């Protein structure tokens, strides 16, 4: 520890320069996802057993739009954090690891955007 400068110690960011941010965001999104997932699954059981009009009417309400949007953001944020750790653990070639992580993050962003687009387009449709 005596080799670390006082500034490095007070910053507390470690050798990866990101500190506990990854760990903390994974927990934060996990906590958010507990009630959101239970609500979403319970609602989905009611909705998917009915017709399209029921599904649209459900997604059309402001509260559902907001909660679905938060769910999508938290879900994909949580998923890409978890997948990043899995890739870091099992892919040992540095450049391959980097390429796979970047690809995975961009695909996550694409899927999250598509899901948000779908939810919002239903919300703002007449």
């Amino acid at each position, binding site marked *: 520890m005596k080799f670390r400068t006082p500034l490095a110690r007070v910053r507390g960011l470690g050798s990866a320069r990101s500190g506990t941010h990854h760990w903390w965001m994974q*927990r934060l999104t*996990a*906590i958010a*996802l*507990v009630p959101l*997932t*239970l609500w979403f*699954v319970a609602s989905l*059981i*009611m909705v*998917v*057993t*009915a017709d*399209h*009009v029921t*599904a*649209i009417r459900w*997604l059309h309400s402001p509260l559902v739009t907001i909660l679905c949007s938060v769910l999508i953001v938290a*879900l*994909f944020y949580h*998923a890409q954090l*978890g*997948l990043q750790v*899995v890739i870091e653990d099992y892919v*040992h070639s540095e450049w391959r690891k980097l390429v796979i992580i970047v690809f995975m993050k961009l695909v996550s962003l694409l*899927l999250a955007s*598509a*899901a948000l*687009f*779908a*939810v919002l*387009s*239903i919300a703002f*449709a007449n």
Partner: protein
Amino acid sequence: MPMEKSQRPLSPHLQIYRPQLTSVLSITHRGSGIALAIGTLVLVYWLLAAASGAEAYASAQHLLGSWFGRVVLLGFSYALFFHLCNGIRHLFWDAGVGFELQTAYASGKAVVIVSIVLTLGAWALAYAMRGGA
């Protein structure tokens, strides 16, 4: 910096150890997380179908309602409830609670039982809502 293959002996590898409830649940948490991440494709597909209109939605419902779709959704729902329950177990550990061996095994058993009960309950409810179909 490229890492040279070291000639030093390695610690005993995974397959040396007899699987225990705790270790099996640990790797299942990771496995279910990966499965759920891939499963988000289904969620995105369903949402886009709902946004595209009645016809696209009907064909999505048809696909997801087929026997193959139901098998996928059954696996997906179990992975979800398992990851949810075991995730809550992890959150308790993060708070510094439940590390005693007995407690870790008890919470592990609880996770297995509760996740199965939740999955069966969700499907029973879905079939009841649908009226048996």
